[in-house]
């Protein structure tokens, strides 16, 4: 059995943790815990970035790691927690699909994602290429979570988690995106969350609830 270097092993552990957290989010129905899981995912991501920066010596990855830490571990979860408190939405209602069913669908998706990542893995030259499959899985699992939830809050968390997956994918495929792109994406996420926050208040004001099935009346034909 070949021994991988320690840094590599740690990186793989981080990747595994990310996937695990994604599944945890998929099964979690408490919104507060969901945000905490998101923060944990952000922390793992920051750690992975830091590890990678240390291993490769790419300086901009340090900045990325710092940005991730500030934005995804501290600021956004704080913002979301505040929103939850203000809006009083601690629980999601019964998801559209049973949790067990969702988990099974998630498994199928992970298999699909790994088979999808195989050709990319062969092409990529980075040490971390084995993690690409995990990145794709994280994106698709977050998408699945958005589909199966009713409350707008969980969907925002899903959206953010998806961004985590994209970030991780970029990191493992090519040691991160150019700094400009990364900054742009970070700003996008920030603005999106702020806008969605405003939206929540508007939706609640209009329907007295954040349950999205109220929006179903907005279609043109019955």
């Amino acid at each position, binding site marked *: 059995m070949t021994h991988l270097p320690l840094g590599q092993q740690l990186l793989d552990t981080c990747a595994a943790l990310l996937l695990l957290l994604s599944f945890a989010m998929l099964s979690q129905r408490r919104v507060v815990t969901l945000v905490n899981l998101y923060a944990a995912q952000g922390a793992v991501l920051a750690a992975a970035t830091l590890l990678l920066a240390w291993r490769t010596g790419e300086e901009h990855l340090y900045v990325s790691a710092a940005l991730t830490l500030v934005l995804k571990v501290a600021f956004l979860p704080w913002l979301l927690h505040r929103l939850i408190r203000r809006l009083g939405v601690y629980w999601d209602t019964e998801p*559209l699909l049973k949790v067990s069913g969702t988990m099974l669908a998630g498994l199928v998706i992970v298999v*699909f994602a790994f*088979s*999808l990542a195989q*050709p990319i893995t062969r092409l990529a030259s980075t040490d971390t290429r084995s993690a690409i499959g995990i990145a794709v899985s994280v994106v*698709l699992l977050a*998408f*699945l979570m*958005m*589909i*199966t*939830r*009713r409350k707008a809050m969980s*969907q925002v968390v899903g959206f953010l988690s998806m961004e985590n997956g994209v970030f991780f994918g970029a990191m493992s495929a090519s040691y991160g995106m150019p700094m400009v792109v990364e900054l742009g994406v970070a700003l996008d996420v920030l603005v999106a969350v702020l806008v969605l926050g405003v939206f929540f208040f508007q939706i609640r004001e209009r329907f007295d609830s954040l349950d*999205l*099935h109220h*929006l*179903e*009346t*907005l*279609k*043109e*034909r019955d």
Partner: protein
Amino acid sequence: MTTTFPSLLTGCVALLCGWVLVGLAGLLRPESVRFAGRTLFTLGAALGLGLAALAGASLLSGGIERLILPIGLPELPLHLRLDPLSSLFLFLLGASSFGISVFAGGYFREGEGTAPGLLCLQYHLFLASMGGVLLANDAYGFLVAWEVMALSSYFLVTTQHRLPEIRRAGFLYLLMAHVGALCLLLCFGVLQGGSWLFTFHAMRAAHLSPGWAAAAFLLALVGFGAKAGLVPLHVWLPDAHPAAPSPVSALMSGVMLKTAVYGMLRVGLDLLGRPVWWWGLAPLILGLFTIFYGVLFAAVQTDMKRLLAYSSVENIGIVFAGIGLTIVFAGSGMKAVAALALLATLYHCLNHAFMKSLLFLGTGSVLHATGERNLGRLGGLIHRMPWVAWLTLIGTLAIAGIPPLNGFVSEWLLLQSFLFAGRLPHAFVNLLIPMGMALLVLGAALAGYVMVKFYGIIFLGQPREASLARAHDCGWLERVGLLWLALGCLALGLFPLQVIRALGAVTAQLIGAVVPQASPHWWLLAPVPGRPVSYGPLVFLTATTAVVLLTVLVVRLTYRQRVRRGPAWDCGFGAVTARMQDTAEGFGQPIRHLFQPFFEIERQLPEPADREPRYRIAIRERIWRLLYEPISAAVDRLANTAARVQQGRISVYLLYSFATLLVLLAVALIS
């Protein structure tokens, strides 16, 4: 030929920019009728006169100027070009817009729909965009100007947007305008011929296979036909023209329809290079049918502006028949005759711009004075509004094709060119086209009938309503506008030789031939060498005037003492009222009866014992049921099918994107 810097083209561009600035100035004090209405519209009129002068100078010099402005797309700056064809239509725009703008300066009043400042902006943008269409020398600039033209005129049509039927008319207009614009987009896409260069210069140089060239021509015919009002694409026109304020109707009918004619000529005879003769059959047949169709519906209308709108449809038919004939002749190598047909077409465009604007403005004055558009409630206005009545009379006679006015000249020239169709080297076609001429003549005769109805019912006879006694004549600005257009009709009718000489540059550019003057006399128009056909409008005018004066004189001298005024004999029936005069419905009844298959008539007749008898008749075009309703039903069905996708649930929408993503990824994985 590129001239020195302060050229005519830069002058024209400066004037168009001036129009935009005048329009923007309207926003300074949008509510003020005095500022936005009187001052700015008069200023805009002056710019129009300047434009007409510059374009006229360019037309007479016959030169071509080009200009490239560094605005527009990154790879495609704005190309402009002033050649005889665009000069002619710019002249038309400038000269007729002068009359219309002066009139509009006196027309807009307080509290009528949109604020005058806003109207001023839309109106001048409309003018400037039409100028842009005429000057553009690349497809991008052309289409941008074309769309600005459509949008600004849409807002002008919906000035009184509080009325639902006006909103409906505006929507129909916008819809047809966009169907047409779509065809034009495709047409230019075909014309670039794989070079992906969108300047008109590149399009002229592009080599298209015969099939693609024919496709481009047909697309242009549909696109420009929809804007011009060619049957069956004319349906927006009878709704939109009456909905707009009268100066706007005048501008749309007089000038905007001509930009479509310009486009058709530009694409058909310039960009496509050598046209194939059978292409011309499509505009010829559609044009002839349009003449007939338009005039029939004009004859049965009871709303004066709708009547004029249908008359515009008829005149556009004449113009398109002329274009078709030009292409048939040019494609068969008969250049001299093609030049004659083209000349008649261009002449008719000029004529129609002046006479139809004049008539629409006249109806505007009547509408302001009486508040009525329905012919059944008008009558006898010649006593109350002599200025409007007499000036409108000139337009009425002109459009009916009465010599020595201008309508006659162009129709006569077109008939002359029709007579050459027998010499075409194509069997059947050379027999069938002269039959089309019969249709043209029938159209001209019916147009006379329509104009008798239009003028007679509005201005002659007795007022049909008591309220008409309060009608007043128009103000002096409006008079100046009407007078200008009426003088234009007179000048175009009395000096055809000079006009034809000026138009020679255009026929030389497009066909490569000019119409010769076969007579040595300056007052005698003889366009066909070797045939004894000639026309001298001044002679005609002198003779008619002499006969009329002589008759008056003789009558005066002979019957001076014996004139006796008394009540008209009423057949022993004492209670004759003004309402017993022939009505618009009554006047149109024979046409309705003769050509019944064309109309969809809904009639309500009163019962014999009815205490309050009411007679109601509604005439619709069959084309709605035959063509448009099936299309709209099909679109509705399609939309309903597509609407099933809309579930209203975010989860389902997310599922759609998720499934799409998975499928695309799977495809990427397999391939």
